[in-house]
């Protein structure tokens, strides 16, 4: 039980800080560049993404486990109606996963849009066109795909992620996105007062600032293994992680 809690905690920390979705995996760059002009809008966007990403993770985990993966119970039952049980056990619907996930995401975005329009009209106005564009925010599909790879790709069924781990990854990733976009918005508010060289105006200077931010976030590399060691002195039995953080070494810039 304790090791499960530690595992959940580490998945969250890794997704939010160490392997930050925006600054490490480069997903969700479009809103990161597009909606990071004001802190309040950026924060609203981050909250909308956290909400959508958790709903999408919930839906995709459920669908993958019960319908899409090879040997999923619902599919086996449905296929068993007109197939031999042996043939039904071999039915593999993972090829449909992208279409299913993108449908799940776009319907949850639709839901969030209606909710925000009804209860938070000012935020709805501020987000504008970027709210429906959450559908094409790669961070959300990315979270669904990582969760799928942790369910379908594992050899030992006991290692497959449960719903708790999947949701933690999604919420952690969403929080990481919010942290990155809010920091970026703060820097850009200051940047408006600066004299940026002409060719760097617009996206170019934003990307360079993001590069420096990414350099800062590289400082978190290795924190997860340190935390794991501190909390579990004995060798860990469960080693599910988003991805082992690579060794530091890119931090020193050779000029």
């Amino acid at each position, binding site marked *: 039980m304790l090791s499960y809690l530690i595992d959940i905690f580490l998945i969250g920390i890794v997704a939010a800080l160490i392997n930050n979705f925006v600054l490490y995996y*480069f997903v969700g760059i479009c809103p990161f560049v597009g909606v990071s002009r004001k802190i309040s809008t950026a924060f609203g966007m981050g909250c909308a993404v956290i909400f959508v990403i958790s709903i999408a993770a919930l839906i995709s985990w459920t669908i993958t486990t019960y319908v899409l993966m090879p040997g999923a119970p619902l599919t086996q039952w449905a296929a068993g109606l007109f197939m031999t049980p042996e043939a039904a056990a071999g039915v593999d619907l993972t090829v449909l996963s992208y279409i299913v996930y*993108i449908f799940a995401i776009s319907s949850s975005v639709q839901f969030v849009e209606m909710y925000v329009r009804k209860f938070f009209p000012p935020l709805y106005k501020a987000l504008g066109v970027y709210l429906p564009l959450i559908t094409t925010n790669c961070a959300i*599909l990315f979270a669904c795909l990582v969760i799928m790879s942790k369910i379908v790709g594992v050899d030992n069924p006991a290692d497959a992620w449960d719903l708790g781990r999947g949701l933690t990854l999604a919420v952690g990733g969403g929080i990481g996105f919010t942290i990155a976009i809010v920091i970026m918005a703060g820097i850009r508010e200051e940047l408006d007062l600066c004299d940026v060289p002409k060719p760097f105006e617009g996206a170019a200077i934003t990307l360079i600032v993001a590069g420096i931010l*990414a350099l800062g976030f*590289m400082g978190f590399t290795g924190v997860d293994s340190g935390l794991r060691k501190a909390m579990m002195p004995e060798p860990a039995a469960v080693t599910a992680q988003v991805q082992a953080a690579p060794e530091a070494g*890119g931090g020193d810039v050779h000029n």
Partner: protein
Amino acid sequence: MAKSIVQEFTKGLWSEIPPFRLVLGLCPTLAVTKSVENGIGMGLATTFVLVCSNILVSSLRKVIPSKVRIACFIVVIATFVTVVELLMQAFTYPLFLKLGIFIPLIVVNCIVLGRSEAFASKNPVVPSTADGLGIGLGFTLSLGALGAVREILGNGTVLGMDVFGPSFEPFTFMVEAPGAFIGLGLMLCVMNLVGSK
């Protein structure tokens, strides 16, 4: 007519070259350009999806109801992404392993959806094909160029061949995450300088 098709093709190679002139599709641009080979492979996969989805969307443009068009486009794109993923798994397995999760993420690449929405849904099949091919090849060129910069500086190689000799100390920084942002930012700046003349 022939001239306009050539124009649709060439605009993707210079005047609207993604991601420099059309600042879209930054996620794959930053993520897979650790080397020239990865960049070009990703570019060609995107080109395939772009051309096929443009052809299908423009031939169905009178059938698709405008209220649910985005959902229809995205299903078309997701289908072709599944096709290209299976093809790559069958024929270019090492590249498939390197690009990994970024192949399925072509589904949410704004360039593909953007071209369906802005061009293919309003134009006949032949110009849409030319548009898809041009934008796709432009994207491949940009990814190849960014990949080359990062591979030469970060690794001292191009397509695996050594360029600087053994005494070169590579900037490991360039193949890491921050190098991607800064490399693309500097390239955008260079494009702005060239374009403003």
